[in-house]
């Protein structure tokens, strides 16, 4: 179940505390922090044993609150970001909040800055902002990224629902890594702009405004950036996903150093899928595809074709193409349609109470 996003008013200027905390204190913290690291190097085991309380103290100042465009209807006008350099480079998600000329970035100590968009990689749902500041606490991407498996306690830092204003640090939510998986850009299942490896978290970390926040391990190691709200359109359940920092690290660094070239937009083809092959090209005729969930039963095998040679039979039910489940005729048509000439393809069929595996090859000339 998901909290409804009822807190959707636009942020106004007078909500923001403008009185910064004494710079002296911050400097002190930095000095101590540096020394702490030094001690840590000498005692690696001790650093491992950092507690949640210590981690929160350390991570919170590196997460910023972002306010920008939106505020109408269901579009919230706030988000979260991660400081990735002491000079004010901020990684966040690419979203409608960044649609305006500039955005407002508020640090945990209440200082406000205008942020400008330095660059974006829409395919990774990533944007990098820059504020004019120095000596900020930050995540060193070269040193501090990590990896973690299911069951690991994690902490998610974000300005979810804009709970933090002014000189407050963002909210921390704890949970465990539920799974490491891939967001399949499967048509109609997820409407995610990003497809690729993700961490799934077992608590509700992805609500309005959380995207762009950070996920760390219990002991403060950087895992990834919180994704947007994402609903699985098949099960109608919400998925709390995090994009691993290993995916984001180089594009962030490239944008920061000004060497970024966006990926060629080869995703355009996925938007309009032309089915290159259909089952007949392999010598298969499926039963008529009448309802949305018609199972992919083989109605006829054309003699002398590779389907016949591979031993496929009438009434075989195609259940997997390579490692993907084929829940219906339609999805088999999609799977075969996407093959390139010469591609090998493994079909698993159910024949009576047995599963049979056959290899086919997409024909080179038709």
């Amino acid at each position, binding site marked *: 179940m998901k909290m409804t996003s009822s807190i959707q008013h636009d942020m106004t200027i007078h909500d923001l505390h403008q009185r910064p905390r004494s710079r002296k204190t911050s400097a002190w913290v930095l000095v101590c922090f540096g020394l702490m690291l030094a001690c840590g190097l000498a005692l690696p085991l*001790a650093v491992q044993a950092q507690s949640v309380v*210590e981690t929160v103290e350390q991570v919170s100042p590196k997460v910023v609150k972002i306010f920008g465009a939106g505020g109408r209807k269901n579009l919230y006008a706030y988000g979260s970001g991660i400081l990735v350099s002491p000079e004010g480079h901020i990684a966040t998600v690419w979203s409608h909040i960044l649609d305006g000329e500039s955005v407002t970035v508020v640090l945990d100590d209440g200082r406000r800055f205008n942020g400008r968009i330095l660059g974006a990689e829409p395919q990774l749902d990533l944007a990098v902002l820059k504020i004019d500041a120095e000596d900020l606490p930050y995540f060193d991407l070269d040193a501090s990224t990590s990896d973690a498996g299911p069951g690991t306690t994690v902490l998610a830092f974000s300005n979810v629902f804009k709970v933090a204003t002014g000189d407050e640090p963002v909210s921390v939510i704890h949970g465990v890594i539920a799974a490491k998986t891939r967001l399949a850009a499967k048509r109609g299942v997820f409407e995610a702009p990003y497809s690729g490896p993700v961490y799934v978290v*077992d608590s509700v970390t992805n609500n309005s405004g959380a995207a762009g926040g950070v996920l760390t391990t219990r002991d403060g190691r950087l895992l990834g950036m919180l994704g947007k709200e994402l609903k699985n359109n098949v099960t109608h359940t919400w998925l709390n996903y995090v994009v691993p920092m290993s995916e984001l690290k180089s594009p962030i660094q490239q944008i920061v150093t000004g060497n970024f070239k966006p990926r060629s937009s080869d995703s355009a083809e996925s938007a309009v899928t032309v089915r290159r092959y259909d089952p007949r090209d392999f010598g298969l005729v499926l039963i008529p595809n009448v309802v949305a969930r018609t199972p992919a039963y083989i109605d006829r095998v054309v003699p002398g074709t590779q389907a016949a040679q591979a031993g496929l039979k009438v009434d075989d*039910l195609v259940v997997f193409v390579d490692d993907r489940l084929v829940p*219906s005729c339609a999805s088999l048509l999609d799977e075969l349609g996407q093959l390139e000439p010469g591609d090998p393809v493994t079909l698993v069929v*159910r024949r009576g109470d047995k599963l049979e595996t056959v290899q086919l090859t997409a024909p080179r000339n038709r």
Partner: protein
Amino acid sequence: MTFALVMSLGLTLASADPAASLEAQTDRAVQQAVALVSASVVRIDTVGGLEQLEPGMASAGATTGLVVSEDGYLISSAFHFVSKPTSILVTLADGRRLPAQLVATDRQRMVTLLKVAAERLPVPQPAPRESFRVGQWAIAVGRTLDVESPSVSVGIVSALNRVWGKALQTDAKVSPVNYGGPLLDIDGRVLGVLAPLSPYESGETAGVEWYDSGIGFAIPFVDVLAVVDRLKSGDDLLPGLMGISFQTKDLVRAEPVIDKIRFGSPAEKAGLKEKDRITAVDGQPVVRLAEMKHIMGVKYAGETVRFTIKRGDQSQEFDVPLVGELAPFQPAVLGILPVRAPSETGVVVRAVLPESPAAKAGLQPQDRLVEIGSTAVTNATELHEALLRLLPGTEVACQVQRGDEKIAVTLTTAAIPNTVPATVPAQSPFGMDERPEKLATGQINETLAGHDRPYWMYVPTRYRPDEPLSLVLFLHPTLNPLEREVLAAWKTECELRGILLLAPKLDGQPGWSPNDLEFLSDLIGHVKENYTIAPGRTVVIGMETSAPIAALFAFRQPELVNGLTLIDTKPLGQVPENTPERLLSLYVMVRGNSLEGAKWPQAIDTLQKLGYPTVFSQVEQADSPYPTAEQNAELARWVDLLDRL
């Protein structure tokens, strides 16, 4: 100063903060518990199957299963098999893929047993019931997000003996992602099998709306193992029924005093009587209804339960053998329409329906029915209550006041006919002459605050606050609001019969979904705050794509909906039986000859067997997107028959 500070920090780190060390150990223990059971957790995929009664709520993705015997038996949540899939495929932890057979379902605990051809599968160790403690670690495991390694959610056991004694409750995240998977204790023993459940409803999808909310349930694994052998025989295990009902649904306050006994039920055969007070079940004393439900919640059909009751001053004991299925409840009627204006005494007849028991006995409009079967009736509600206690076909003596005369008539009750009479006289207006100012009538466009969703409605201009209206809630097909057509077909009927037509709009939503149910409930609530709506005369209409949600709303909200109309849609999936506590009538209209329409006659038969009075109307396909005014007129007459007695 600086030095001291650094020193103290350094010392803290060096001495390994006990909190940090504990946290690290907990993570490790969780991961070890999961690793211990991982080999017994399988992934289940399904292919094909029915379209859903409850769109979106059913799991169309993968689900999880758990090994229960080494010769290839697996248990999973029944949730995933609602759609009766064509083919079930299991991926074992070692990567082997096998086809599976559905063996049987425990419909009491909502778990399903599957069989695959595999040997020497690892059966996980069950946690003994004595070890269950509220507050202990609970780890929910699934195998759907990733086949390679199971998914994990960590929480605690929140409560024991939930959902009438059936389940453990946990705050670990439980959802279609891990339904069917195990809930582990910190030692890796299986506490239970994760499943959606609700204390308020039964059925495969009850409780799904609580997914990931911190309220999750698991059927104790020890209980599952205890019934595996019975399930292996291939017969479903059914909840044990006895056929009694109680006056109120308020379980906490309600006393276990029998209100109604179903005809032909085990309770009737055993000799229980209405007004008997149940004082103990299987020797355990009960004072409130909830206590009895806790005991009965885990009883299966075939078991015998001993009831101790108090009848008058006498205490008696009855052994009641429970059954899986009761003969359907059939509401009995006399065939009269009551005058809707409040009467001082008795029920005044507005119309006598043709060929009804009342017509055969010679009842006339303006007759005042004052007594049925030696029970005095002062209003329509009391007559309705009395009729619920009679089987169709029962002779019953009635007293009728006709002018100054009091006459005795004997009627033979009938079942509600499955046709609509050609004419149904409308109730003439009886409200106050002057309409209060500022009372909006006619077509009204508004937005429901809180949901920010628009709707339109038509309030008959004859409306007066002291004359309750019928309510018709129309859910339009996804891409077509049909506002003009629906209004044209209904406007005259609304005026004639006192019907408020209410039509929420999708407003850019991709389609109706279970998420809209709360909006629909709130919308009806909002309308009832402003207009007087008659109890018992609320109908929801679903057409084409909106039909499944209309049906879901009607079955989920029996206290709000009395009639369900489905236009141009295919038959429903499995529905619960009709009961005296929440009576629902159905009207199905199919236009033209379609494949889907051809499936209805058999479905109507099933619905009638489940006790639903159902009218089936197959009409010509006209050019209009909504049924013609003439076709709609029969539907309007049916709405006006909902308070028939």
